[in-house]
Structure formats: structure tokens, C-alpha cells
């Protein structure tokens, strides 16, 4: 006999929670990626200015 639905709750929370966690991870990762690109460009612009 089933007495509760705790296993089913765990499955649903795990599935949805997986998306939430991965989404948060990739959002922060992409923000860092774009910031790195911007910093690199700014740095090379500063170097060019110094050379001139």
C-alpha cells in the first residue's frame, strides 16, 4: 500500500530543480564570458593608446 507521495514529489522537484540550477549556473557563466570579452577588448585598446 502507498502511504504517501513523497517519492513522486522528489521526482518532480528534482526534475524542475535541475532546470533551475542549470539555468542559474549558465546565466552566471555567460555573464562572466561576456565580461571577459569586454575586459579583453578594453585592455587591448589601452595598450594601443599607450603605444601611440
Amino acid at each position, binding site marked *: *500500500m*502507498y*502511504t*504517501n*507521495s513523497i*517519492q*513522486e*514529489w*522528489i*521526482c*518532480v*522537484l*528534482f*526534475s*524542475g*530543480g*535541475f*532546470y*533551475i*540550477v*542549470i*539555468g*542559474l549556473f*549558465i*546565466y552566471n*557563466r*555567460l*555573464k562572466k564570458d*561576456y565580461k571577459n*570579452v*569586454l575586459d579583453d*577588448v578594453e585592455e587591448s585598446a589601452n595598450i594601443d593608446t599607450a603605444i601611440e
Partner: protein
Amino acid sequence: MNIELPFLIGMIVMLAMFVIVGLIQGRKIENTTDYYIAGRKAPTVLVVGSLIASYLSSTAYMGDTGFMFDGFLMPYVLLCAVCSVGYIFGTRYFGIHLRRSRVLTLPEFFGRRFNSPRIRMVLSIITVVGIMCYLTTVTKGGALLMQNLLGMKENPNGYLICLLIVWVVYTSFTFFSGSKGVIVTDTIMFFIFAFMAFISVPFIFQAAGHFSGAINPVTDTVVYLNDAEHVQQGLDMGIWSTFTEPIHKPDWGDFDFTNITMHLKPGALSAGGVTNPDSPWAYMGSAADSIIWGVVLGFIWLIAMAVSPWQTSRYMMAKNEHVVMRTGLIGAIVAFAVLLFIDLAMTVANLIDIPPTASSEETFIWMAMNILPRWLGIVIFCGIMSAVLSSCSTFASLIGFSLANDILPAINKKMKPENGLRNSRIVMLIASLVVVVITYWTIPGIQLVSYFAASLFAISWGFVAFMSTQSKRISENGAFWSILVGAIVFTVLSILKNVALIPDAEGVLQKVAFPTLLRPEILGLASAIAAYFIANRPAAITDEERAYFKMLHTPEPEEVAQRLGKPEIKKTLWGAKAVILFGVAFIAILIVIYLIPYQAGIDILNGAA
């Protein structure tokens, strides 16, 4: 021969459209870059459409729907949730770098990354063998579908005729237009079967009753779990519920299977699916077995979706890196959403009387032809056939590309690069014909062989793929042995698991039973990783390999300009936010339509007992 004319007309119109699109796109082909990777100009909608279309095939709409119908909703939901995020990891940690390499095929990428002809050859062979396995199962699915449509199931030559029809259609537009045509037809097909999936669900629910229902096998009355009066009525009539032990243990040999409903599948709505050993559908073992299966296979498929050739080849077609990243984010949401809808519908379909002549794999097709409105049935048929053709065209093109670009030039040094386009077309044609012969003479189970093929890629080169773009310490030797050992171990163990080869004490051949946590997938992956650590020689890494690695991490100048564009960055980041919102929405919806009614039903049944 009993042909359903409206279905046939709908199908002919759809197939003609794909062939015409293929011919039009074929006229724009100028070189191998156009033929192999659509000239690297594809926008997000085409890449996403092709990505999902290549992934969803007869495996999803026949094999997996059959699995849902058998009573394994939650294990499959777990699998889909885990594997779909493979698109996100695949794009960020592999796809973007793959696109920068400007190669035409995946084996070529690994060959150049490690400066290794032997890695390129091994990967090409694995690609061709694995995709041929997958193509045979998908083609078989298409032929079965066509047999249903043309009413040729009883015809002794029906399977062969339908097989040839499917082959002619997908080969024609793939042959002429290559990836330039395939990516367009894939996207059209994607919209057809996505529309079909979302629209058919309310009609299936309506035909079956409310989702949260249990069944009375005697009078076929749908009993609502959250309706105390109906549950009591069902209990009074000697009902089998979806939660408790079966009240009667029938002699299956005399059992009338005309009314194959959920009463034979106790636990179909539970976390582990059908686990009661009295049910003939309890083939997954215990609840723990099926849940672990869902999660473990989900992670294996996550790797497959991240690095398999029929997915990663789409990234090479993207017009820039923002398109690659958005494809991964949108793909993760759309793939799971489509499968989730169909999963729920097929579970509910158990409430409909489906005759035993329809096997589990053909249940969805049977419903399309017999239960649902005629116009919807036509859309479903076209949708499933679209899914079949989109995958077949992708697989056929990849087999041809690997043979023409990676294997044959290594064997025959006289093959001229300027004949690349012609050679690719000829090889693709021959390879697809070989697949038709294999498909006709063998009878694989659709779901089983496709799982093997996808797992083969994940296990043999999944680890090496991520290491090749993220680690400076992986050497050619480590990569080669990891790929080879992983592929061999997994293939051998899979054969032992699925084919009776080992004699028991009485000399009868048996299959090998593997413990759940030591399945061939896990042992194969562990072997691949172990082989890497044993064989890796960081000191032997050459300057060419280091330079190639640096190139993979250096965006092209026009890419830098693209990535700096604030509107572009905002759009891509919104894709990541959408993934988070989707996770929240998924939990909220499943609580309302599944968890709350499920618990209410248990409370009522426990109180009544």
C-alpha cells in the same frame, strides 16, 4: 489493401513539399561547405528546428510513446529532464569551440585537435556504425508507419514497399541539397510535429477522461481520484487501482486482453512506474531500478545530446556564436516540453480501450487513425513521418559526410578535393541503400537499438570531447585509448546484456543480467575514463596541439564585435533566464495536475481500505 484516403493525400502533399524544398535548396549548393554545413549562415530558428528534429524521430513518437503507454511516466520524465540540459553544456563547452575550428565533420575536428589520423579514422568508423544503427531503427519506424497508412500490414511485401518509399523520399532531398536543404526541411518538420504534439494532447485527454483518473476494469468507468464518491463506487465494484496491489491475480493465459487498461498496470502513475510482479508490464524491475535507470540513462543521454554528431553538426551551421548558445538554451526547453506533453498524453491513453492488435509502439498511431478527429489524425501522421524523415535525412547525410570526408580519402589518396561534392553525394546514396538492405533483413526493437547508438557516442567520446576543449593536458594517446576502450567495452557488454550468448549450467544460452548501478553504460564510461588516465602522456603533447587548443579559445574578430553588442548579449542571457523560469513552471504545473490529485487519491484509497 485498406487505404485511408485523407491520410494518404495529406502524406503525399507533405512529402512532395519536402522534395521540392530539397530541390530548390540544392540549386544553391556551390561547394562542400554549403553541402556539409549550410555555408555557416544558419539563423537561430533553423538551427533549433534542425537540432530538435534530428533528435526526435520514430524513437520518440513510437518507441518512447510505447514505453509511456506501458506505464513508466515518472522514470521517463526524469530521463528527459536530465538529458535535455545536455544542449546547454554541449553548446557552451563544446559547440562554440567546434564552430571556431571551421571543420566539416566531427571526426575531422578530433583528428585536427590531436593531430592524429588514427583518432580521425576510429571516430569516423564509430560515427558510421553508430549512425547506421540509429538510421535502421528510425527507417523501420517510418516503414511501419507507412504500412499502417497504406493498410499494408497483412501484405507480405508491404514492409519492403513502404521501406523503399521512405528511402526514396529522404534520400532524394538529402542527395540534392545536403545540409542546406536538410536544415530547412528539418525546421518545417519540427514545426509540424511540435504543433502535432501540443494540439493532440487536449484531444487525448478528452477521449480518455481526466488525467488524474483510475480505472474500473469491469465497467470501464473512469474513476476520479479526487472525487471520493466515485472512488468508493469503484472500490465497491472490486476495482484495481493505480496504487494498490491487484485484487485478483489472473491466469494470464486465459485473460481477455481486449480491455487493456490501467488495471493491469498498477503503479503506472507512481514514481517507479509499473513494478508489481503480477503485471506483465513490470519489466523494469523495482521502483528503485526504474528511477535509477531514468537518472543514469538521462546522464548518458545528456552527454549524447552534448557531443553526438547529429546534434553538434548543427552548431557548425550557425551564423555566429550567439546563435550557437541560444540554440542550446532554447533547445533544452523545447525538447523537454514536447516530450513532456506526449508523455502525459500516452499515460492517460491507458484509459482508452485499445485492442491488442496495436503493439505499444503503435499505440499513438492507432489512436491517430481510430480515436482522434480525422484532421488531427492526419496532422499526427504527418508529424510522426516528419520526425522520421528529418532524422533519416540528418543521419544519411552524416554517414555520407564521414565516409567522403574522413574515411575514403584516408584509404584512397587519389580522391581529388575538387570532386568532394560529387563524391559526398555518391557515397551518401550508396550508404543509405546499404542501410535499407540492413533494415529489411534485421528486425531491431526501435527503442533498444537507438538507445545503444546514442549511448555509444556518449560513452566512447563524451569524456574526450569535453576534455579536448577544456583541458590542455589531454594527449593524443590518452584520447585515442579512451575512445577505443570505451567503445569496445560498451559494445561487448551491451551485446551480452541483450543477446543470449552465455550458456548456463544446463547449456541453455542466457543474457547477462547486470546490476542497475553496473550497467554497460556506466562500465563503458568508467573504462573510457580509466583508459585515459592510464594512457595519457601530457609530456608528449605537441606544439601543433597546443596551438590548436589556443585557437579554439580565441574568438574570431567578427565574433568579438558580435558578442560585444549589448542587444545580442541581452537576448542570449534572456535564454538562460527562460531555462530558470521553465523549471519553476514545470514544478508548478506538475503539482497542480499530478501531485495534488495523486496524494488525494492515495488518502481516499487508504481511508477506504
